[in-house]
């Protein structure tokens, strides 16, 4: 184990465990009462080699010999030499010979019987032969020459030596052939992945014009692909995402600050401070959890700051839950329930989720609670954790079904595009305030999804959702700023804007995965929240909860991607926060844009082929923004899958193949299949479809 508690790596600290034998009988081995030497310094050039070094599998024949049982059939270990002192010299040779016979069985199964038939001539030196079949055959011949039924004690030393040589050679040869790959299948899989990647790329240019941002995206793709072949970068992948996201925010700022568009609606100060805040939030989030191998154990917010300032932690958690409850009341239930009932419902959900989080943290990590809220915990003590979790999930399920059913019935034609024609039932029902809050199904469900994800997150990571929420609004603000004023958004503008949004979502998805403590090592999978509400052994439920708790950040950002694509952004709310007054004209701008676009479409269709309008007005792009967003993500996913497969295949004999590259491949599978196909395309697509219905 290394200093961070990780035992999944290949550093000396993790691959040098101590093997200790304890028995009073060992005293008779100690060289006549004097005891054995106990070195204080490790051997020259090593970190942990104080005593003899043996393979882990050497324990097996040793225990078999000590217990008097035969050696297991598939063993690849050698008897540990110092412990052979328990037997007489002749017995030692017999034990070694038995070990060698057993190993020979494995050798013959690997290389075939014919190579080890009786040789006519025994060689004096086996060292010059190729490792593998030839060397083993030679050494076995030498063993058989010495150890035969008529042997006597004069050849004990020679026999011991030959047997040890043979065993060591066999162990080395057989261990390296332990991973025999079906290489043709590897290549076949790579070919299929290459087809996927090529088709994703080919469909990409037809949707996108060549642009600077496309070029930057291409650079990101190429760098990522190259990175997959270096073990350091696979272990420290989070640095790549943090590094790229910072630079991308700078590009985003540069684009938003463009001054040559007519009447840029946002002042340069707003844009500058939004970008600075976005970057600052990102900087805070990346120090939330220290992941990866190189700096594991170094101070971070979740493990260093919060345990000593647990009150701050709980203030932030309460703030997150309150913010969520407020959004539930104002956005999710608005128009569906009367205002007081929706407030009660939102409060109930929020409070029950919070109480569950409190009790769960008390059980899981009491050093974070330290006696806070004793009354609440005492009051909720009769309800066990499983019940509380189920209550929260049930509440969320009821709320979601209610919202879907009622909203779907009432919101038949509602979407940002056509809410002008909507009979205004929504705004009439939501008499809470005068700001025109966009209340559609994806947005309503987003808040419920957030509460679900927060329930599945460790307490220290809960405030990150506040950070993400704020980042999403800033992103929407910056993202839409340069186009806010263009009355006719050309296809090119729309596409470029969509690429910006998609790349931002992609970068933030991955950054959030690592910021919440994920990494490319299997040891960082968090199981603490995988059993919420599950009392027995239920693979499906546990699997779903495990995925939800480890991919909480990416799932949230997938839903946020739907929001950005649909053009939500609460930019009106945000700009009114900044400027201190309600800019009532601006928050209807998209309505005016939509009217103009409809107007132009009608004009175009009237004029028909003879398009007499000065600037070419195309009908609204037939490619939906969702398809553009998804194709951008798919290109990345397909290429990353291809690159990871290629690197695993090319490096299959690398030292780190099982500790670094194949865990990365497992993660890539989870990303591609579960996150991209399941969440991004499946659930995201469903949300989008309901949003534009």
């Amino acid at each position, binding site marked *: 184990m290394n200093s961070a508690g990780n035992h999944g790596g290949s550093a000396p600290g993790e691959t040098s465990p101590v093997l200790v034998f304890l028995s009073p009988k060992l005293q008779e081995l100690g060289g006549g009462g004097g005891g054995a030497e106990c070195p204080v310094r490790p051997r020259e050039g090593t970190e942990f080699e104080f005593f003899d070094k043996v393979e882990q599998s050497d324990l097996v024949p040793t225990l078999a010999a000590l217990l008097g049982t035969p050696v297991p059939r598939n063993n690849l270990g050698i008897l540990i030499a110092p412990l052979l002192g328990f037997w007489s010299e002749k017995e030692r040779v017999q034990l070694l010979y038995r070990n060698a016979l057993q190993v020979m069985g494995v050798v013959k199964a690997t290389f075939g019987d014919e190579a080890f038939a009786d040789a006519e001539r025994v060689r004096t030196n086996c060292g010059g032969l190729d490792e593998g079949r030839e060397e083993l055959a030679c050494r076995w011949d030498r063993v058989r020459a010495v150890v035969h039924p008529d042997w006597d004690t004069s050849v004990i030393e020679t026999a011991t030596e030959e047997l040890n040589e043979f065993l060591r050679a066999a162990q080395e040869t057989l261990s390296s052939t332990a991973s025999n790959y079906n290489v043709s299948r590897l290549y076949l899989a790579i070919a299929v992945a290459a087809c996927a990647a090529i088709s994703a790329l080919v469909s990409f240019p037809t949707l996108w014009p060549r*642009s*600077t*941002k496309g070029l930057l995206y291409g650079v990101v793709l190429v760098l990522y692909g190259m990175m997959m072949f*270096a*073990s*350091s*970068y696979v*272990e*420290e992948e989070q*640095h790549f995402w*943090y*590094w790229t996201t*910072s*630079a991308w925010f700078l*590009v985003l*700022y*540069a*684009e*938003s*600050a*463009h*001054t*040559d*568009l007519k009447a840029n609606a946002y002042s*340069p100060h707003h844009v500058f401070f939004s970008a*600075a805040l976005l*970057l*600052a939030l*990102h*900087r805070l989030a*990346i*120090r939330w959890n220290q992941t*990866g*191998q*190189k700096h594991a154990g170094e*101070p971070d917010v979740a493990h260093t700051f919060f345990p000593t300032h647990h009150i701050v932690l709980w203030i932030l958690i309460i703030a997150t839950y309150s913010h969520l409850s407020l959004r539930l009341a104002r956005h999710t239930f608005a128009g569906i329930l009367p205002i007081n009932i929706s407030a009660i419902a939102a409060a109930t959900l929020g409070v029950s989720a919070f109480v569950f989080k409190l009790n769960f943290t008390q059980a899981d990590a009491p050093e974070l609670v330290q006696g806070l809220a004793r009354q609440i915990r005492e009051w909720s003590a009769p309800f066990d954790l499983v019940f509380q979790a189920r209550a929260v999930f049930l509440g969320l399920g009821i709320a979601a079904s209610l919202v879907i059913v009622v909203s779907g019935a009432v919101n038949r034609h509602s979407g940002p595009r056509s809410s002008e024609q909507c009979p205004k039932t929504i705004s009439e029902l939501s008499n809470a305030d005068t700001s025109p809050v966009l209340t559609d199904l994806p947005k309503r469900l987003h808040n419920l999804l957030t509460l679900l994800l927060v329930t599945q997150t460790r307490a220290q990571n809960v405030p990150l959702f506040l950070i993400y929420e704020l980042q999403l609004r800033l992103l929407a603000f910056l993202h839409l700023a*340069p186009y806010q004023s263009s009355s006719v958004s050309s296809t090119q*503008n729309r596409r*470029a804007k969509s690429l910006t949004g998609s790349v931002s979502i992609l970068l933030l998805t991955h950054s959030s995965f690592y910021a919440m403590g994920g990494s490319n090592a299997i040891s960082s999978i968090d199981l603490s929240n995988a059993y919420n509400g599950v009392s027995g052994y239920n693979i499906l439920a546990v699997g779903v909860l495990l995925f939800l708790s480890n991919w909480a950040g990416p799932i949230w950002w997938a839903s946020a991607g739907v929001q950005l694509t649909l053009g939500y952004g609460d930019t009106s709310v945000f700009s009114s926060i900044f400027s201190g007054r309600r800019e009532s004209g601006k928050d209807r701008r998209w309505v005016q844009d939509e009217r103009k676009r409809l107007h132009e479409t009608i004009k175009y269709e009237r004029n028909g082929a003879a398009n007499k309008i000065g600037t070419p007005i195309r009908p609204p792009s037939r490619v939906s923004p969702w398809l553009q967003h998804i194709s951008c993500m798919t290109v990345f996913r397909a290429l990353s899958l291809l690159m990871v497969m290629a690197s695993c295949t090319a490096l299959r004999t690398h030292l780190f193949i099982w500790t670094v590259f194949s865990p990365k491949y497992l993660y890539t599978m989870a990303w591609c299949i579960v996150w991209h196909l399941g969440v991004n395309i499946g659930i995201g697509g469903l949300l989008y479809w309901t949003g534009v219905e």
Partner: protein
Amino acid sequence: MAPDTESKTLQSAKPIELLHSQPSLFFANLQPILLLGTVLFSFKSLVADPVRTLLGLAPTIAIVQAIYCVVCLPSTGDVAAPTTKPGQKKKAGKPGQDIWAKVIPTFLSFTLTIVLSAPLLYIIVILFGAPLTTHHLHTLLFALHLALLTTPHLYYVHGLDAPTWLRLASLQQPIDESYGMSLGACVGAWVGAIPIPLDWDREWQKWPVTVVVGMYAGAVVGKLAGGYLFKGWKIKLA
């Protein structure tokens, strides 16, 4: 923004030309050699003791940049559009022959660099991932060097004209030698962060050695690319 000011500033957004004189061309070509040479010669001491090395190098770099500004670049007062730009220093229209008329803008540029750019860049570097709670002096000196490589010539050439600076920040200004150097230094510093997470555990991977080297390399590459290859090009983001 009134339309006529906007069109005027758009019109005057031309790449900055170097002064046409022998010393100017000579020093413009000498400067990248000086910058790179300084870094290469002090590399060992940079790895051994970054703080002292960077502190010691700062005056040298400042002097190199100052000579570059004075000898090679047109001051704000010499730009073609002569009339009032906000924030323009009241320099007479004498075409930069008077060396003393250039010293004051240079001095002002460096003052602004140290007082305004360096702290701002320090904050930006931290936001980009530089350590916040440790390595304060390292990061501060790195930001100082970044400021010295990116901003003095821009202050000297563009003054404190707000629309121009907004265009510089939003990458709308056409690329030229000085702007190319600034952009190159930033991109080089960013690229210089690549070797840091490798597990080679070398001394030169520690903060801020690689980013400093990347910054200087990027500045030189950017200057050459901006001066010869991409001169006059505009980055098209939207």
